[in-house]
């Protein structure tokens, strides 16, 4: 790499969220506006300072009802923004702030907002349960053409074979992996904004109904309604910002086949992203104070614990067992907002990024990790993969 990484010329300046709940009776547009107004105020900026706008994912890529709300044109019109950079990001962008960070680093915008708004809670209820992937379309297109017809009808079913293979290859057990949702629920109990806050035990987990083996109900994140907005600003605007957070490094490498059923080694996911990430910074896994690792499903946390080098391949089960390491006060407090498993499926690490920013600012309330200076954030893994190191400014 020549010179400092481009992401050093960008900071995360604001995060904001609408109400997040199983059901919020507001339109996608109103939820989006709530989140953007909160994020821009959080940055210490005014709407007239915003000159970049990105919707994530861009319209038209939704295969699930309620998946992508807050139309880019309507949001820009409603907020009366004049933009010099705009994007309806495809979900293939490794992390939602990746594109905006490059835009401000390149001088295309000074303060860019990226948002994601989901109405999946309402959509699930209206459908009488979690709907099948592609349920809004008459036929399964692209990679889904090989998944939906044979009965892999949900992301749960599509990711489950990874967990099957991982547990088989390394002898990791459900009793070990249970600690991920159990400890995250403990964190959620300290987060007034989390969706599920009542205690969860390992026995509750082991007694829960199977969705798609080996994944049970508590291995799956929670469909919700809600919006998250992130403001990414030029680093040289820091003096105008209330509490910016540095982007120390970010990476997103897809080095396997980008179809859920075709990924070559289902026991190793995200490792190339981890290697690329640490190559962009002098910091090391041992320097990380708090981890916000994508948890659409429990197994994804195991991927990232290993891929980012917090433990060796096949060791995530032993790493989380008993819960001590990943609890507050442990060596790696994990998904301190409850994660998507208890905090709600805000998708694409929007919730994880918002929490990382709060932790680095010391604004995480009862769940604050004392003295947090370095955070990691990751997104999905495998066919979509992104990870970043964020630090105090």
């Amino acid at each position: 790499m020549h010179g400092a990484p481009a992401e050093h010329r960008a900071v995360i300046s604001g995060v904001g969220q609408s109400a997040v709940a199983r059901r919020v009776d507001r339109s996608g547009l109103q939820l989006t506006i709530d989140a953007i107004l909160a994020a821009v105020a959080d940055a210490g900026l005014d709407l007239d300072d915003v000159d970049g706008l990105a919707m994530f994912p861009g319209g038209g890529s939704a295969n699930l009802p309620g998946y992508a709300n807050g139309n880019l044109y309507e949001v820009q019109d409603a907020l009366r923004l004049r933009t010099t950079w705009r994007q309806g990001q495809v979900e293939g962008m490794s992390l939602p702030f990746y594109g905006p960070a490059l835009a401000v680093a390149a001088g295309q915008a000074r303060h860019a907002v990226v948002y994601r708004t989901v109405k999946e809670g309402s959509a699930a209820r209206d459908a009488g349960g979690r709907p099948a992937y592609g349920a809004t379309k008459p036929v399964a297109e692209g990679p889904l053409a090989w998944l939906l017809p044979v009965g892999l009808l949900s992301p749960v079913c599509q990711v489950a074979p990874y967990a099957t293979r991982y547990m088989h290859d390394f002898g990791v057990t459900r009793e070990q992996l249970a600690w991920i949702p159990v400890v995250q629920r403990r964190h959620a109990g300290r987060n007034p904004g989390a969706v599920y806050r009542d205690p969860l035990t390992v026995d509750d987990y082991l007694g829960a109904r199977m969705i798609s083996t080996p994944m049970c109900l508590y291995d799956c994140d929670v469909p919700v309604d809600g919006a998250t907005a992130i403001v990414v600003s030029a680093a040289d605007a820091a003096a105008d910002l209330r509490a910016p957070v540095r982007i120390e490094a970010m990476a997103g490498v897809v080095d396997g086949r980008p179809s859920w059923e075709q990924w070559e080694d289902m026991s190793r996911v995200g490792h190339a992203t981890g290697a690329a990430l640490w190559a962009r910074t002098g910091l090391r896994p041992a320097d990380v104070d708090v981890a916000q690792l994508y948890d659409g499903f429990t197994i994804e946390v195991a991927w990232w614990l290993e891929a980012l080098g917090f433990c060796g391949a096949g060791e995530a089960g032993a790493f989380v067992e008993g819960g001590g390491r990943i609890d507050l006060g442990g060596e790696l407090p994990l998904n301190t907002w409850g994660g998507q498993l208890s905090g709600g499926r805000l998708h694409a690490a929007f919730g994880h990024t918002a929490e990382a920013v709060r932790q680095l600012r010391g604004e995480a309330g009862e769940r604050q990790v004392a003295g947090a200076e370095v955070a990691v954030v990751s997104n999905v893994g495998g066919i979509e993969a992104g990870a970043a190191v964020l630090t105090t400014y």
Partner: protein
Amino acid sequence: MTAVVGIPPAITEETQPFWDAAAEGRLVVEHCDACGAESFPPRGICRTCRSRDTGWVEVSGPGTVYSFTVNHQRWLPDLEVPYAVVLVEFPDHPGVRVAGRLRGGAPDDVAIGMVVDVGFEPGPGGTSIPSFLAR
């Protein structure tokens, strides 16, 4: 056999021959006339040497289960559960992995490494979908 409930595939220029063969009970994958490598799913280009001079070859099996899941959730009305879906690889066809249903035994009897025979069953939208047979 009653057709399984699901969402039918979009059939494209690249995938039409696969679904046509499936209707005849044959599993075919792309074969590269330039380098001999096989590719699946079909892309109209060899994933090994990137030649666009591709044809088709039949995979007769048997195959081996690389991984699997047993689905218990009724994602669609009238979907019969539980059922096992297996990801099958073939010793004589490196790089080919096909997802399909498993029949011929209880869903929970599925295991990694299990040997299965190639088969099909009536699927959504009048298609014939991969449905492997436990030995």
